[in-house]
């Protein structure tokens, strides 16, 4: 098994260690240099020819000690050396140097011991050589065995293989591949540091995952986007936007431009758990939904789970969007940023203690107000808007086994309409995470999160001046353990608890003269706890299963009042028959749910597999909004005696195939979902400051099904994907009385039901410095309710509507382009910059956002209108830079 071929040189018995070297090597092959050294210094150097073959060195030595000189010469080849004796030097790969004892190395080298056939484990961390940041999703592959794995969220990987010597290939997006020979005689660790590829800014890779990950893993319905990839996509007004990129994935839709949130596989926007460094966000939008809250500079990667949601996640029934922020550079300080038409960004990062602790601080501010000031109209000039967000993260490696990270986030939006009405909303979150490695088989993470989302409106229109404030506060604690006793088994378990406090609205008259009454809606409190366990088991290379269970308990806590309604008739304020009062801390309502998850993978030969998955999710908090798109100032409500938890069941079947050496991925996923206790609204429901809101809400059922086809290409020059989705999302509200039914209790299409969806995302590297990206999207128009007839009431026209959502607005399609020009592609340039030119909606299609009906001519003639939000092509230009010390 031992392949190490030794090339001993001739030499004399002298102590080479003591000898200084004086020489000048200009671009000389290393092998030649080594040969020269052997002769000059009467030593023998043992090495493998392939280690040194491609390497050329340029060094100048003047009376340099031998060891120092040799170290410098070998650095480029990633080799180290060991003095076996005074005349014998053994070269060893740098990564192995720490574990290779000279005697074993030489013994092995000299004797060529065959290794018995036994299984050993290789594990370690994959980090960036420059920043020390772990690489999530870096591919680690033993080439000879075609066996690979993916580094986890801490950059940790582990692989099991028969003892032997292999080629280890480690790859990550934007990094030069690390390829090295590894001798595996016993279980060992090997940390790999990767270097940025020279043209990092332009590097385009579709995904940070193993080339065969989509076929080999149990995952389904999971999409990862690397921020480098997100950056390449044409951006609306030049603002790189995580959520807009997510919208390009199959199974993700939106009701229209400017709408906040996104809909995943037929779910409402509040059914997405949006996490930023594990802190849930209640609003992911800036400027009423035109932009998302994630600062692209701060994001490391984005994972969207639209199916196969791990048991560790809970609390929302449609999807999880997990946005991880980067850690600061542990090696050198870096300043980077960008200037755009709407906002600018600046980020500073660097080590606090080199290689141990780092920080990153990033901020973004928008200046829409600046543009407003140039508007000719007074009321527009009087208006003002802003948004900003600040992220900070500190990470500290306490020891080999412990890492602590703390991150904070602050964002604020404000918009004043004319001189009198101001809308504001803002988020503040803080996360502390402690990772502990018990052994390379058992890892743990403890996460604590505290957050606050407050939003409100204030008006200065006398005599109805007021401020209306709402707020959600939450605290969470979660512990996760990951145990991998052998390569066949992987067990995750953990527990979490989340405490929420909702303030649904406090109205205060803002002056003595205001005719409004102060109104304070009762606060709502809840506690959500969960424990989970899942086990992934690989029966054989062909078959693997994973199954898990999450058990969640929910408590709606006092103080609070519960109205009892007459059960015989539809709930209304007038049908309240009694009021129950609960003291502080008393349980008003409790719910318990078992949430099972399961998946099965069967390999169908070399590069394809079939997967089956099921999961149940439960959601205890709900966004209360009956408008087409939710606004950031809509209220949230926690489950109570009337508002039952939403439950979603999903069954999915997928076929995955990779072709052309894993550069082309093909997938087909079909799903069927059943949703229960969805929140629907009575016609004309009043949602704001309504103490009997429960009476205006209706429980609904939903079903959604679809087929998602996707072709993804990762390559050098042309990357991207094409996807086609056929999906339906239907709702049904079938209460006992006509008032509690919608469309007579029949299924009707949800607002975001768009059956056909075609998306193309392409990026073509035109030259080393220029790349062109294009996005094209087509989808069926969303459903809308049409008028049935018109009537005249008291001289005014009234439109009678037909059943809900029985018609559709015209189809939507759009093409966006972006051209990125990099200033340099030098590997170690201190100043890296790029220009991005983009055009959104290139052919200026006036995609209807809505169709509505309104009487014109003083309210006497019926008229239909089409509203397009973006009615023309929108060009933008952005400048990005990065300064490394």
């Amino acid at each position, binding site marked *: 098994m031992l392949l190490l071929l030794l090339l001993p040189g001739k030499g004399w018995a002298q102590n080479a260690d003591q000898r200084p070297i004086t020489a000048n090597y200009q671009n000389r092959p290393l092998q030649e240099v080594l040969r020269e050294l052997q002769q000059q210094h009467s030593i023998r150097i043992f090495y493998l020819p392939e280690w040194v073959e491609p390497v050329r060195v340029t060094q100048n030595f003047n009376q340099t000690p031998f060891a120092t000189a040799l170290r410098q010469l070998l650095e480029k080849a990633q080799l180290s050396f060991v003095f076996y004796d005074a005349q014998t030097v053994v070269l060893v790969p740098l990564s192995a140097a720490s574990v290779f004892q000279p005697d074993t190395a030489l013994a092995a080298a000299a004797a060529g011991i065959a290794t018995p056939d036994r299984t050993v484990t290789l594990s370690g961390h994959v980090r960036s050589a420059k920043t020390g940041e772990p690489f999530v999703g870096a591919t680690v592959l033993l080439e000879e065995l075609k066996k690979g794995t993916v580094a986890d969220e801490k950059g940790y990987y582990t692989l099991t293989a028969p003892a032997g010597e292999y080629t280890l290939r480690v790859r990550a997006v934007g990094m030069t591949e690390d390829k090295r020979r590894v001798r595996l005689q016993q279980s060992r660790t090997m940390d790999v540091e990767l270097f940025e590829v020279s043209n990092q800014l332009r590097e385009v890779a579709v995904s940070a995952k193993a080339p065969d990950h989509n076929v080999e893993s149990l995952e389904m319905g999971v999409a990862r986007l690397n921020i480098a990839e997100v950056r390449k996509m044409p951006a609306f007004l030049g603002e790189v936007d995580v959520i807009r990129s997510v919208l390009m994935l199959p199974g993700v839709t939106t009701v229209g431009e400017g709408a906040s949130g996104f809909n995943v596989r037929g779910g409402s926007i509040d059914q997405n758990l949006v996490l930023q460094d594990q802190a849930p966000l209640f609003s992911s939008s800036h400027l009423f939904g035109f932009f998302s809250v994630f600062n692209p500079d701060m994001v490391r990667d984005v994972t969207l789970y639209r199916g196969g949601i791990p048991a560790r996640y809970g609390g929302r029934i449609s999807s999880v969007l997990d946005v991880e922020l980067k850690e600061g550079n542990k090696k050198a300080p870096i300043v980077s940023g960008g200037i755009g038409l709407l906002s600018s960004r600046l980020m500073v990062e660097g080590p606090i203690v080199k290689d141990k602790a780092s920080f990153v601080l990033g901020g973004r501010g928008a200046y829409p107000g600046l543009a407003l000031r140039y508007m000719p109209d007074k009321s527009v000039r009087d208006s003002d808007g802003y948004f900003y967000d600040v992220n900070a993260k500190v990470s500290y490696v306490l020891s080999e086994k412990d890492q602590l990270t703390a991150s904070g986030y602050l964002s604020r939006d404000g918009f004043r309409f004319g001189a009198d009405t101001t809308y504001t909303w803002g988020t503040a979150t803080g996360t502390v995470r402690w990772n502990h490695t018990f052994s390379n088989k058992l890892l743990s993470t403890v996460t604590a999160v505290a957050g606050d989302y407050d939003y409100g409106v204030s008006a200065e229109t006398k005599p*109805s001046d007021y401020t209306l404030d709402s707020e959600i506060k939450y605290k969470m604690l979660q512990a996760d353990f990951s145990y991998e006793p052998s390569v066949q088994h992987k067990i995750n378990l953990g527990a979490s608890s989340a405490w929420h406090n909702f303030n649904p609205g406090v109205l205060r008259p803002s002056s003595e003269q205001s005719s409004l009454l102060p109104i304070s809606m009762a606060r709502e409190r809840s506690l959500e706890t969960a424990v989970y366990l899942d086990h992934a088991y690989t029966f054989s290379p062909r078959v693997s299963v994973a199954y898990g269970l999450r058990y969640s308990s929910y408590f709606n806590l006092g103080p609070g009042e519960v109205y009892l309604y007459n059960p015989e008739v539809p709930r209304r304020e*007038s049908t309240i028959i009694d009021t129950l009062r609960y003291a502080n801390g008393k349980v008003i309502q409790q719910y318990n749910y078992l949430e099972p998850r399961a998946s099965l993978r069967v390999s169908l030969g070399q590069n394809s597999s079939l997967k089956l998955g099921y999961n149940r999710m439960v959601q205890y908090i709900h966004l209360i909004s009956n408008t087409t798109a939710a606004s950031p100032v809509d209220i949230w409500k926690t489950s109570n005696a009337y508002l039952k938890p939403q439950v979603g069941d999903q069954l999915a079947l997928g076929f995955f195939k990779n072709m052309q050496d894993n550069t082309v991925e093909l997938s087909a996923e079909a799903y069927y979902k059943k949703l229960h206790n969805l929140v629907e609204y009575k016609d004309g429901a009043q949602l704001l400051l309504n103490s009997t809101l429960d009476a205006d809400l209706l429980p609904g059922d939903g079903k959604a099904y679809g087929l998602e086809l996707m072709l993804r290409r990762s390559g050098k020059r042309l990357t991207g994907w094409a996807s086609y989705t056929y999906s339906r999302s239907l709702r049904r509200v079938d209460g006992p009385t006509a008032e509690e039914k919608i469309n007579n209790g029949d299924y009707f299409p949800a607002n975001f039901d768009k059956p056909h969806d075609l998306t193309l995302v392409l990026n073509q590297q035109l030259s080393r410095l220029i790349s062109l990206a294009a996005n094209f999207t087509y989808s069926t128009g969303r459903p809308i309710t049409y008028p049935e007839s018109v009537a005249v009431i008291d001289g005014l026209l009234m439109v009678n509507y037909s059943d809900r959502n029985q018609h559709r607005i015209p189809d939507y399609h759009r093409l966006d382009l972006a051209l990125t020009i990099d200033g340099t592609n030098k590997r170690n340039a201190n100043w890296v910059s790029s220009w991005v030119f983009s055009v959104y909606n290139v052919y200026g299609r006036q995609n209807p956002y809505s*169709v509505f009906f*309104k009487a014109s001519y003083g309210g006497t003639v019926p008229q239909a209108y089409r509203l397009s939000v973006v009615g023309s092509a929108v060009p933008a230009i952005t400048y990005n830079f990065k300064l490394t010390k």
Partner: protein
Amino acid sequence: MIQGRTGHRNGLWALLLIFLSLQACVEPFELKTGTEKRSLVVSGMVTDQNLPELNKVTLTWTEPFDGEKRQVLNEPVLGATVLLQDNQGNSMSLTEGARGVYTLLESDFEVQPRRTYTLHIRLPDGREYASRPELLRPVPGIRDIKYEFKEFVDVVRSSAGVLVERKSVGFEVKAQAQDPAERGNYYRWDTEGVFEFFSDVGDTPLPSQCWSHVGSINTKVVVSDDRLVNGRLFEQHVVVVPADIPTKYRIKIRQYSLTAEAYEFWRLLSQQQSSVGSIFDPPAARITGNVYSLTDPEEQVTGYFSVSALNDSFLVINRSQYAPFPGLPYELPKGNCLILGLYPNVTNEKPLGF
């Protein structure tokens, strides 16, 4: 007011689009949709005042939604029998007039406060309808009427469909009322406008000072509840009196009581009127009234029959104090002001208040 929040938000959204220079556009398009199957429309009320011009019910048929026809000719229902009954067994008959209007004549008026009224309709083909009972609730008086001369800036869509700013001037008229201490009071307001105008008759003895009775100048439903102002003195914006000619304008405001159900009907109609198709619009809602068919429970009936107490008050605005108004300079028309044909319902009998 908070009710205006959706409206505000819509305006806000339009504004956002403007500064993002997105050229958002609204295009009217012709759409013909809906059923030919027509249903009965009942629109009307009875007040606690014996005023036949207010105590009437109009019966018409619905029409399909037709954006091409450019007019709505709701066909009147002729020959129906319309009866008003109270909860004490008294019944009043409404007399048919022109174009499907059935009026409670002065001689038949027996409406009493705090009683419950039900409308019964029988069509010539035998179909029968009834309204759900409506309680005649009291309404407080109008404390005061105020006006303010102001410039209005709206974000509107030009004929080209682009969002533009439109400026206009007018007199914003507000009614002030004292809400009673108990909760659950609902209000509706409407208006009646009369203005004077002059003509240049030279030395002839022809009438040169006339008044035009323009009736209701509301183009939108104005309703409110006391949810946020219970027990307080509150103000309600009712109408904008146009600033077109520099003469006196008498604006009468009528304040009606409503039941909770009637308020809900008018509120939804008001919401429909303020829809702009934006992302913050609530989805189109069906507006159900209080009239149902006695012969076929499945049959749809549109509209509302309400019973209201009424209080009114008026204010005369001397518009000349604020002249000149933007636009063309005001020139006196020539000739007999009674037969100029510029304004409707012209009289030279001086109305009260001038």
